[in-house]
């Protein structure tokens, strides 16, 4: 898994490439926690290059979403979610808990 972070005035764009499983989810969690400790709570997660997402990754997503939405201070939105991963999010009941965007620009523009 590779994580790329781009910080904009408005939000952070987190691009995750490869697998998000029990081996790699802690790294994603660390990245997001470090940003939240700096007071950043608006995240666009670009999953276009994510090939796999297990419940370990789902746990990071839900924890981060809870933390961001608290005090109305931010939000995690998901961009470019591949069909397999969307199916996993759907089965987990996560679809109503996140906003989804088909491309990164729209996500960054609407967060």
């Amino acid at each position, binding site marked *: 898994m590779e994580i790329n972070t781009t910080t904009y005035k408005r939000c952070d764009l987190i691009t995750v490439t490869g*697998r998000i*499983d*029990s*081996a790699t989810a802690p790294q994603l969690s660390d990245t997001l926690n470090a940003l939240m400790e700096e007071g950043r709570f608006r995240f666009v997660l670009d999953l276009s290059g994510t090939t796999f997402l*297990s419940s*370990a990754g789902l746990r990071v997503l839900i*924890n981060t979403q809870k933390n961001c939405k608290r005090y109305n201070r931010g939000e995690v939105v998901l961009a470019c979610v591949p069909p397999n991963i969307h199916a996993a999010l759907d*089965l987990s009941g996560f679809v109503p808990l996140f906003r989804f965007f088909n491309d990164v620009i729209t996500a960054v523009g609407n967060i």
Partner: protein
Amino acid sequence: MEISNSSTPPTTVTQVFPGRCSSLEKIAEFVRTAAQQAGLDDFATYQVETAVDEACSNIIEHAYQNTEGEIICTCREEIDRLIITLQDQGQPFDGSNIPEPDLCCDLESRSNHGLGLYFMRKWMDEVRFEYDPALGNKLTMIKRKEK
């Protein structure tokens, strides 16, 4: 160790992995190859890969509790199905009685646990837990081929 017999079903391949998170990617590759060879489509392959990843993550985290141990993974293709078995020597476990998680829509009250078994049950056609004091845990998961 990889054992494989003839190339028309039934075909059986077995591989042993160290029970560590760093094995998950290799286990996924092993299972994905077996699923593709069994003729499963991309989504069914992804479902099998997910179920196996969840099962192995649980073995590593809960059965072995992050101590040393092995996971023996066997993929058996039959004419109409793919049968995956995972064997470990960790703490005995029977997941059959664990209830489904509550997938309520309210973010704050959503638990961040319990999705692993749920994925296994929803995305495989059959999930069976067995324990034998000599052989340890044996989890069998079956995915039927599309008719």
